[in-house]
């Protein structure tokens, strides 16, 4: 079974989804999905361990060797993303029951879990595959499932958000498809490793440039990088709470992975970063994203929406890391990818609890929530502190690496901007803290204060996530070493 390991994290949810559709009772579907996602997580953990021991793992699907068949090719980068996505997928699902039962009508629950599994399988499939076109297929699986999941939000605006996401996401996917088509025409292959070998020979052609441009734009649409982020706030805000948690923790991360994979493996860094002015483009867009996202988040009356904009900002940080074009920068980017998934997972999970109990997440509704839901609010606060980058939390580690990476390039202005960005984060997090703890509770008579804390299942997952923020702020070996190994594997041959 060990030789099948690279496939398992993807295959389990992929086949689990149709199997889940056969279950009629929502509860059974939930239990089944949980089991599947936990198994996938176990496989992903084993896979990461195996990758550490044995280096790159290759798995030929259908038994056909690489450029002819589809290959799963797992290096540290894949393994890290797989682990992250499956872990968040499993965690969110485990805590999802109460929230789903509250927000999704009964006849849709089974389908909801099926779509969730499909989305998970799609994201994992993107992260595992070594074939450019296979990536597109799984991208579409996850995207379609995402549209459906977003549309299950109770507000009718969820529909519009899902529709906009669908249109923009499809444009993005089609752009990626165009790009893949161009590189295929240039090289005749779709396998990423093979592409990497054959592209340099044609790297100077204008077609290669256009191909890269299309892929980058397409991926950035999915990634919600600044000017292409328009779908994200709506989708995150209007989606059911659980979906938001899952998407925020995984979807943009996988998109970033795709960006890194195409930039550094397929097109290779000599081309993508050194030959093109992308370095500047990424850094500038990243900085603009940080400030635009954070500023909107500061003035947003709804916390969920504010955090969605904050995601736009955080994507900016990650892209800055990529744009630095150094091993340190990439490592910082990957570390932030990992940590941000945990932070946003915590924050949105806490918001799921808040929405569950209070029916909404505007600041007005959340007044005094610190007293009625102390544990949830504490977790929310922990996630927020991590987002700011307070030392001792995971967010600090990200900021540290990002700033050192920028300092290595001696870009002092960038250092300042990065840090100033986290000040803005502090502003909106503090707005939340004041609302939660200082404002009088909204209509205290109507709700019994003791009964308000989130249900146990949700709370348990939330607390674990919140503690993970602290844990990964103190014991950073997993993300730092894996990200370091991955970054070295991608860039060390070429760059300092």
């Amino acid at each position, binding site marked *: 079974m060990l030789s099948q390991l690279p496939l398992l994290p993807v295959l389990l949810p992929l086949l689990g989804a149709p199997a889940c559709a056969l279950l009629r009772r929502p509860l059974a579907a939930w239990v089944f999905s949980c089991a599947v996602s936990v198994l996938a997580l176990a496989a992903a953990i084993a896979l990461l361990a195996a990758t550490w021991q044995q280096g790159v793992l290759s798995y030929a699907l259908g038994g056909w060797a690489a450029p002819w068949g589809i290959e799963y090719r797992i290096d540290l980068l894949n393994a890290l993303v797989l682990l992250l996505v499956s872990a968040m997928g499993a965690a969110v699902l485990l805590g999802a029951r109460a929230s789903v039962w509250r927000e999704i009508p009964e006849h849709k629950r089974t389908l909801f879990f099926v779509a969730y599994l499909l989305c998970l399988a799609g994201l994992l499939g993107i992260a595992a595959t070594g074939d450019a*076109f296979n990536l*597109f297929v799984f991208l579409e699986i996850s995207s379609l499932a995402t549209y459906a999941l977003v549309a299950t939000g109770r507000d009718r605006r969820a529909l519009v958000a899902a*529709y906009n996401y669908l249109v923009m996401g499809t444009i993005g996917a089609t752009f990626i498809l165009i790009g893949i088509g161009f590189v295929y025409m240039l090289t005749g292959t779709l396998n990423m490793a093979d592409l990497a070998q054959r592209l340099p020979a044609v790297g100077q052609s204008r077609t290669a440039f256009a191909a890269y441009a299309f892929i980058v734009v397409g991926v950035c649409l999915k990634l919600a990088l600044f000017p292409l982020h328009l779908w994200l706030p709506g989708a995150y805000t209007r989606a059911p709470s659980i979906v938001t948690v899952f998407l925020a923790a995984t979807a943009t991360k996988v998109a970033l992975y795709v960006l890194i994979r195409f930039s550094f493996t397929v097109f290779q860094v000599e081309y993508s970063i050194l030959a093109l002015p992308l370095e500047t483009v990424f850094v500038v867009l990243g900085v603009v994203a940080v400030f635009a996202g954070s500023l909107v988040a500061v003035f947003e009356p709804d916390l969920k929406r504010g955090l969605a904009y904050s995601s736009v900002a955080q994507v900016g940080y990650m892209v800055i890391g990529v744009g630095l074009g150094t091993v340190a920068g990439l490592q910082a980017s990957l570390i932030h990818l990992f940590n941000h998934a945990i932070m946003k997972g915590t924050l949105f999970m806490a918001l799921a609890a808040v929405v569950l109990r209070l029916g909404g997440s505007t600041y007005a509704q959340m007044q005094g929530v610190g007293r009625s839901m102390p544990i949830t609010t504490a977790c929310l606060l922990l996630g927020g502190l991590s987002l700011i980058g307070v030392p001792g939390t995971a967010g600090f580690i990200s900021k540290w690496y990002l700033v050192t990476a920028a300092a290595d390039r001696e870009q002092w202005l960038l250092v300042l901007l990065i840090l100033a960005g986290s000040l803005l984060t502090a502003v909106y997090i503090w707005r939340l803290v004041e609302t939660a703890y200082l404002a009088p509770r909204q209509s205290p008579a109507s709700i019994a204060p003791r009964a308000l804390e989130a249900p146990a299942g949700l709370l348990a997952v939330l607390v674990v996530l919140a503690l993970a923020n602290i844990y990964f702020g103190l014991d950073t070996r997993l993300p730092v070493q894996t990200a370091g190994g991955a970054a070295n594997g991608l860039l060390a041959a070429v760059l300092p």
Partner: protein
Amino acid sequence: MDVFSYFNYWVVVVLMMLGFFIVIARGNLVKKLIGLNIFQTSVFILYISAGKVMGGAAPILADGVELYSNPLPHVLILTAIVVGIATTSVGLALVVRIHAAYGTVEEADILEQDATC
């Protein structure tokens, strides 16, 4: 002749642009999806053009035929077509729901309704 050898591709480019234009310029949600359809179909044409070999036959093995067109783009596009119809159907389902919720499928009207409430 360079120009002729690219003629096919350029027409495809024009098609893509037309489709793309419908997607972003039109306010009707159904029309947007139609545009998306055109856009995607044009990409299919691009791929298939790339797989054509002058003088080749369809890639169904037959005796006495030496030159075949490239089967790989065909396979890819088969998948892509399925993806396209899947996207369209999901999009249309959303449009139906939006119509039920807003009573309109014009983007401007929807924005207006959202702004007022």
